[in-house]
């Protein structure tokens, strides 16, 4: 990416933000939609939070850019019982999340308007903090300006140049294949040359690289692998943030909450923690949209995407379905082939 393109990029992000606000205002003003879901700047810290605008005035708060982390699709689940159309400002992962809800028939297609936005990736505050040698909490403000990120830290008055955005993206964004969202009703910012050029580039890492950690774990001894997962699982608080953030976890009654049958016992000891994470991962297998929300939401840093990726890797190698979450592919567990492999049968 040349320097010129980056200068354009920061300008493009500003324009994108403006067009998001304008389009949202227009839709709300004309009452074509009841609500627009997007991001706005958070009360504190560098990131944005979800924002639910029901009036043109509130639409002025919308933000766009690499600080807009946090999935939006799942919120539609709570709007499903209300009348009227809800618009979502959707990055690629949000659009796939909406698609997941539509395929799972959890949301009416007529009641959703997906407004796609090109995405350059959403920063991972932990990575950024590590790159700067601080803790994530010390990040106060991050913008994408000419050249690279600009970061203001706690206790500083002025923002300073930070690392390039590419270096502080979470792995899901690195491997993202939908920086230009798919299956959207309309694109906002589709005319922004620098941004769309960046979003249109192939993923920074290919599938195999994205799965490098899975491969590494596969190569450990069984006991080391057990120690790895047991070590993580014992930390699990059972807060269910992973489930609640996940667009594929959209059941009316979650198996994890069910008393009858009681799939998951209440003890938080290791055997039940394995059951918890087994059920969660198996139930999203083949349905995961690779947004990484589960991992992002986890307050105790469980590497949950390594469970999801294991399934996507195996589904690819066993059943030849590369990207079950993308349009045009089949859902691998609602079907079979008579000549599926029989490794141990």
């Amino acid at each position, binding site marked *: 990416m040349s320097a010129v393109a980056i200068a354009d990029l920061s300008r493009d992000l500003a324009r994108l933000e403006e067009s998001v606000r304008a389009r949202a205002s227009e839709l709300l003003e004309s009452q074509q939609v009841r609500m627009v879901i997007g991001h706005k700047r958070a009360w504190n810290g560098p990131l944005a939070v979800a924002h639910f605008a029901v009036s043109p005035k509130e639409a002025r708060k919308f933000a766009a850019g690499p600080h807009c982390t946090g999935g939006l699709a799942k919120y539609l689940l709570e709007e499903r019982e209300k009348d009227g159309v809800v618009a979502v400002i959707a990055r690629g992962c949000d659009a796939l999340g909406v698609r997941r809800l539509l395929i799972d*028939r959890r949301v009416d297609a007529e009641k959703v308007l997906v407004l796609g936005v090109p995405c350059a990736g959403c920063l991972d505050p932990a990575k950024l903090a590590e790159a700067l040698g601080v803790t994530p909490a010390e990040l106060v403000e991050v913008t994408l300006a000419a050249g690279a990120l600009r970061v203001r830290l706690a206790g500083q008055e002025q923002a300073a140049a930070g690392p390039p955005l590419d270096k502080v993206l979470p792995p899901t964004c690195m491997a993202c294949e939908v920086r230009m969202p798919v299956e959207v009703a309309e694109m906002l910012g589709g005319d922004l040359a620098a941004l769309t050029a960046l979003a249109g580039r192939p993923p920074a890492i290919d599938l195999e690289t994205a799965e490098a950690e899975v491969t590494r774990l596969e190569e450990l001894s069984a006991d080391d692998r057990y120690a790895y997962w047991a070590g993580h699982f014992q930390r699990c608080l059972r807060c269910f943030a992973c489930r609640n953030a996940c667009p594929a976890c959209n*059941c009316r009654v979650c*198996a994890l909450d069910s008393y009858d049958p009681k799939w998951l016992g209440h003890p938080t000891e290791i055997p039940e923690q394995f059951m918890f994470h087994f059920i969660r991962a198996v139930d999203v297998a083949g349905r995961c949209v690779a947004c990484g929300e589960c991992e992002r939401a986890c307050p105790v840093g469980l590497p949950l995407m390594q469970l999801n990726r294991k399934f996507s890797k195996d589904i690819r190698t066993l059943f030849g379905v590369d990207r079950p979450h993308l349009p045009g592919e089949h859902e691998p567990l609602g079907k079979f082939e008579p000549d599926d492999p029989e490794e141990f049968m």
Partner: protein
Amino acid sequence: MPRIGVFVCWCGSNIAATVDIGQVTEAAAEMPHVVCVEDNKYTCSEPGQASIRQAIAQHGLDRVVVAACSPRMHENTFRKTISAAGLNPYLLEIANIREQCSWVHADRVAATAKAIDLVRMAVAKVAQHSALTSSTSPVTRRAMVIGGGIAGIQAALDIADAGHEVVVVERSPTLGGHMAQLDKTFPTLDCSACILTPKMVEVVQHPKITLYAYSEVEKVDGYVGSFKVTVRRKARSVDESKCTGCGACWEKCPVKVKSEFDLGLGTRKAIYVPFPQAVPAKATIDREHCIYYLRGRCRICERFCEAKAIVFDQQDEIINVEVGAIVVATGFQQFDQAAYGEYGYGEYPDVITGLEFERLVNASGPTEGKIKRPSDGKVPETVVFIKCVGSRDEHKGVPYCSRTCCMYTAKHAILTREKIHGSKVFIFYMDVRTPGKGYEEFYRRASEEDGARYLRGRVSRVYPKGGKMVVLGEDTLLGRKVIVEADLVVLASGMIAQPDAQEMARKLGVSYDQHGFLTEAHPKLRPVETNTAGIFLAGACQGPKDIPDTVAQACAAASKAAALLNREALEAEAMIACVDEARCSGCLWCEPVCPYKAISAKTISERVGRRTLTRSVAEVNPSLCHGCGACTVACRDSALNLLGFTNQQILAEVEAVCP
């Protein structure tokens, strides 16, 4: 709280010799909810059953565990027993301590321990049982036959003769199918049309049969006993009720079109009947070629139709038919010879298929029965037949044998030798397969009496040279290369599934194999049924078949359908899937895993707060569900459960394995 009685069987010494019955009864007495434990020498004997009935009354039992032989042996016996004592028959569980314990273990201690575990599992499961009942549904006493070839004709006649109404749907303008195109039939060499056309006429004259020709099945809803079929009656542009089939129209029609019936070797008109004996003998306008439809002028046929039957603006008509059973007899199509580039079919006019040969040799065919080669009309002196073209060839996607080609090639050889004096016939073959009454004799007649030269080997290439077709082949028995300069080359084409067979299968909800042939429910024991109750298979839609086999299968399918239609009502399974609507997310992930199309979406209303909302949930049709339970695993929310094998029951059993 459940009140469970446990009845441990000695089975004489069959169980008692290896399992310590006393220890088992002692242990059972400690199990949760068990209020009564008894043991019997032979629980299945009348005294044994009586003791169960007594105990139910005496202890107020509401659930029963019998620890004895396999449930596959006596589950029904004991269901009747407890039913006689007033319990729902499904409040029973069998602990299999004979086949799966006493008979397979010698160590008394270990076998006793295992028997106790098995009883504990049964007790834990039966505690979760609930009373089950099965539903019944009425039967619409009418059948539909899809396809009007010989299979469909035979099935329709048989069902109608059994006294039931039949609706026949045929997509071409006439009955007859492939059999109508054939000349003679093996091994008797009787004329195909002579034995077929009377049956075609019988169909339209039968008071119980309604024929919808030039019609297609659009959609199939419903289930066994109560199918709702949507049929599209395509517009013929001719009023069937008025057309007399006099032929004035097609005599005057100025447009000549290649005849599909003659496989392009002859012609027909734009208004036509496919062949003279077509049934129904009603004309059809081919709108793709009719000048009026193309250019808006002509209408000559209308002028000459005395019956005033021509209706140019006729529209397709959609009709709905309710039937209780469906016989699928949609037939086959010929293998596409273009897959064999080395034989040059389609490029060289004198390379033809077996079915084309049938038309050439047929007295009512384009050459009036004289074998003339298509390129120049010359009578061929040397004819080469190549067998297994589109059969037994994995590389072309057809690994199977088409079953008819050996015999019809022998027939072609005999006919060639009969009709062309002094002709030479060469037949390249891989094997000669003649499993049928009179078949081997027929083949021998071709090779020995009629002098057809059978050469064992494949042909590698066919190419033209100086007015001849050079056939390069091999005689593997002599280990020699063979070159034949032939006048005509006939490819014995295999049979493949209809191009839209999979679409038809999906409409019907039946399965199909990797070649597109519809699959029978069991290859040996249920050869004409499908996995969808009430849908039966006849003829080549299920796999390649000759006429005798097709007719036999059609009769079988008809008898199955008739047996079904003879019933007033159908009783459904009791152990079927059910939906907990409060839990169901309505995602319908269960739908694709159901082999019986038993699951569909339905809309329910519910009160939420002060509002009434509607949402969609899965619904199981009890008449279609067979109780396999695949849906329960696809259901992440556990909204689907399988009665008799609920999640709770299986979990309880698993829990009980390791106390």
